[in-house]
Structure formats: C-alpha cells, structure tokens
C-alpha cells in the first residue's frame, strides 16, 4: 500500500516504512539506544532526501526515548539534576546544530557534512566499542574480573572548577565537562539526526563516572529533550519535518522496541556492546564507501524555491 509523504514529497510503501520502524525499534530496544544512527541512513537509502531524513528522525527518537525515560522514571533510575544540567547546554548545542544545518544546506554542502560526520563519528566510536568489548570478553575468559578502573579513581576532569554534587548518581564533578557533553550531544544530534545515546552513555560513564544504575535513564531524558527541541527547530526554520513519515516510524519503533528488549536483557553486557560496536562501525564504513567511491551520477538537483 502506497502512501504519499507530504513533506518528503514522494510516495512510499507504508509497510516498508513500518517494517523499518519495527526493525530499528527492535535493535534500539535490544541495546537501549534511540537508533537514529540506523534510521537516518535507512531513510536516505529508500530515497528520502538527507535533510528531510535528519529532521524527521529527531521526532521518532523523541518518541522512543520518552517511552524509555518513563520506564526508568518509574524505577527511579534517573538523575534529574544531572539531566537538567546536561540539558542547559544540550539545547544550545541543538540550536547551533540547526543553525549550521541551515547554513550548509544553502551552500549545497549539507549532504557532504552529514556523510563526513557519520564516517568519522561512527567508525571511531564503533572501533572503540569493539576494542573495549573484545578486551572485556577476553578478560572474563581468562577469569579476570571485568572492572575497568577502580570506582572513585580520579582523572584530570575531576580537577576542574565549578564543582557540583549530584546526589542520585553519587558523583561530585565540575560543571564544565557536563556542559561540554550536553553541547556536543545536542549539536551532533541536530546535524546527524541521531539521539546520541550510543555516544552519551559511554561519555557519562568514562568522563563523569556516572553509575550504571542512573546512566541510561539520564541519557534518555537528555535525548528526549534535545530531539523534541530539534524537531521544533527543524520544523520552524527549514520546514523539513514530515509528520506522516514520523508517525509511521514512531508506531513501528515503539512496538519493535518491546520485542527487542527481552533478548537484550538476556545477553551479556560485553557481547551486547561488541554487537552494537560492529553495527555502528558497519554503518560508518557504509558512509565512507559512499564518499570515496565515484558516484554513479556526478550531478544532482536541489530545489531552491518555487517561481
């Protein structure tokens, strides 16, 4: 059954889009991520322009992260104070990202920027995740404990000023790295159409030493707010959010996530991280391939204005 997407301006098969929502939802439920880094490339692949894909996926991630945030809220497994602190700079990051997005679109370099960001971010993060999880798997196989570093150990980040205490997470850190992380996540989210959960969780764990009990819930609150505000900002400045496409993706996504959650809980943490790392790395390589290999068509068209 074909359905016409009013903003993307093309007809798509409703079951194809619903299926993509389900598949990405399954994976996002399994790994506890938003899945934007998979959804945006998939939409581009079926012929939706990168700009519309990035803008629309932000609303899809807002929906899935709200479901997640609510369930962590019920379990009291999120740190509101930390989330608010991250948000204060996250929104600024999102606004900066949307602004740069608009500028690059006018310069015909948006697609390139999206491609390059995907390659650099995903291959580096993917490779790091693979390396870390393989080491953890080998270590447990040799019977060694899987702790990375003793809790309470300090890095140079803990020496920075403006220290704040976050009671629920039981951490005492400087506001500077918290703000920096919020800004980065908001910024890349708006540019790339990703929630940034797969980036934010490791950042919070390694840089701020947020305990695993609150890290995912807190990251979901940040993702929720940055993606909801990215939706509003993309809609207000670029008019590229396709509500019909978003609706189908959301419905597929939230259902898929429920089915993915169970196998995700059964699997061991490091195995799960290895799988996610491979997936992230593969998507990065796919974008690299596209940038390096000579395109079938050197020419492309862009709509400027009517009249």
């Amino acid at each position: 059954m074909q359905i016409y997407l009013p903003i993307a301006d093309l007809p798509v098969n409703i079951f194809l889009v619903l299926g993509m929502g389900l598949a990405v939802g399954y994976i996002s439920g399994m790994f506890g991520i938003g899945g934007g880094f998979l959804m945006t490339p998939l939409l581009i692949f079926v012929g939706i322009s990168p700009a519309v894909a990035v803008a629309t996926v932000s609303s899809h991630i807002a929906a899935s992260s709200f479901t997640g945030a609510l369930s962590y809220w019920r379990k009291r497994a999120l740190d509101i104070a930390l989330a608010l602190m991250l948000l204060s700079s996250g929104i600024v990051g999102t606004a900066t990202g949307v602004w740069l997005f608009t500028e690059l679109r006018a310069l015909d370099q948006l697609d390139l920027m999206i491609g390059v960001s995907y390659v650099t971010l995903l291959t580096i993060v993917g490779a790091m995740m693979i390396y870390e999880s393989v080491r953890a798997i080998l270590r447990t196989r040799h019977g060694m404990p899987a702790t990375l570093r003793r809790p309470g150990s300090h890095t140079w980040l803990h020496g920075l000023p403006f220290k704040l205490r976050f009671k629920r997470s039981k951490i005492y850190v400087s506001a500077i790295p918290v703000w920096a992380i919020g800004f980065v996540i908001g910024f890349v989210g708006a540019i790339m159409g990703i929630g940034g959960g797969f980036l934010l969780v490791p950042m919070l764990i390694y840089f701020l030493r947020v305990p695993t009990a609150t890290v995912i819930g807190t990251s979901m609150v940040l993702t929720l707010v940055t993606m909801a505000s990215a939706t509003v900002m993309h809609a207000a400045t670029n008019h590229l959010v396709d509500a019909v496409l978003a609706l189908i993706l959301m419905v597929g996504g939230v259902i898929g996530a429920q089915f993915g959650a169970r196998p995700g809980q059964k699997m061991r943490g490091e195995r799960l991280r290895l799988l996610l790392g491979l997936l992230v790395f593969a998507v990065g390589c796919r974008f690299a391939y596209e940038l390096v290999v000579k395109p079938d068509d050197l020419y492309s068209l862009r709509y400027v204005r009517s009249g």
Partner: protein
Amino acid sequence: MRRFAIMFAFVTGLCGAGPAAAERLVVSLSNHRVAVTSSFVGEELVLFGTIEPDPVTSPLRPPYDLVVTVTGPRQTLRTRRKQRVLGIWVNVDSREFVRVPAYLAVLSNRSVNTIANADTLRRLQIGLDNFLLPQRIGSDVADTVRDDPFRRSFVRLQTQQGLYRESSTAVTFLTPTVFRAAIPMPAAVPTGSYGIEVELFTGGNLVARTNSALDVIKTGFEQYVADAARDYGLLYGMATALMALLIGWFASVIFARD
C-alpha cells in the same frame, strides 16, 4: 503598417488560429484537476482533439503533425556537480536554473526533429533541446547551448524522475483529423498550474495552435499537512513533538510490565 501587423496578430490570436488560418484546433482534456491524495501513484490524462477547416469551406491539408507541450509551475532549481577533493566526492560547482518548469512534457506523433526544421523548432521552443531553460551565470540569466553539461544533466535528471519527457508516440491520430494525446502525470508530480500548448504542423509549418490548462492540487490530509508545515512551521513542529510524546507515553502505558 506595424500597427496593422499588431492588430492582425491580435485578431488571429483571438481566433485561436495559427499564421495560415486555414485550420482550427478543437481540444478537450479528460480532466482539468489532478488531485494528489495519499494513495496517488500517478495518473494519465487524455487530451482529445480534432482539426477543423477554418473557414469551414477551406480545404484541409493532411498529413498533419501535432506537438503538445505541457509545462508545469515554475521553479528555481540548482544543478550541482561533484568532483573529487582530497579523495572524497564533493559538490564543487553548481548552476541555478531560474524559473524553469517543474514539469515539461513534449508529446508528438513523431520525432519533433522530423516535424519541422531546426530553426522553426528553436523559434517555437519545441522539444526538450529547444525549450528555454535560463541559467544564472554570474549576474546574467540566459540559456546556454544545448550541449552545455549542466543543461544536459539537468534535463537528464528531470527525465529520470519522470518530470521531463519527450515522447514521439504519445500523440496518435485516430483519423487524419482526430487525435488523442496521453499526458503522463508521475507520482512525484509538482502541484500548481499547468499550461498545455497544442501546435499543429503541416509540411513543416505551424498552421494552428491552441492551448488549455490544468491544475494539480494536493487534497485532503496531505494538503493540510504540507500547508501547515510551510505556513506555521513553529506550531507544526510543536504538534509533531507533542505527537511523539503522546506515542511514547502510549507505548509505555500499553507495554508496561512493571
């Protein structure tokens, strides 16, 4: 003399007749409104017409050739060219095509190049090669030679999308004076007002012309959504974000297991 010529042009224009004024075209379009709905997958419009002697007693001069040119609403589009920079492919060069038709179909009963000579075709802008496609070059706006790589790629890309086409089989003569033209409307057809120019040739000369029009409109929900996104961006964005929250909340209520 000049005044007389203008008056003559005006009068012949009113009659809808061409320079020779011995034939008259009567056309009828199957549908003047194409509605793009959620299930729109493209449509084919049919233009029927007859060639009438004008005045009635004058003789007809078959065989006739017919060219139907359909032009969509005007748009400005940019054609970009990629080039390898530091190992990756980047858009380095671009040209803006100013106020060109978003849809352009040149339909005829045989190849337009065999209907009239090159000068006539160029003067009447018949065929994709001869249609005026102005480009912005620096501060100037002008059409280039038809071999210009940007122009050729622009036409090729639009043709790939089904938005530009030149068909030498779309017009069929049912009798020597009754014809039928099939106007394809692809799924991605742009909305707006379309002009249809019908030109009749015999012996390589234009002998009659007439025109018609149609509208492509988005209807129902699609139109509503597209209008809202364009005119009330902020509210539309807030509504979409709210929808996301509602669906997220719904899911957490329905699937709550704790």
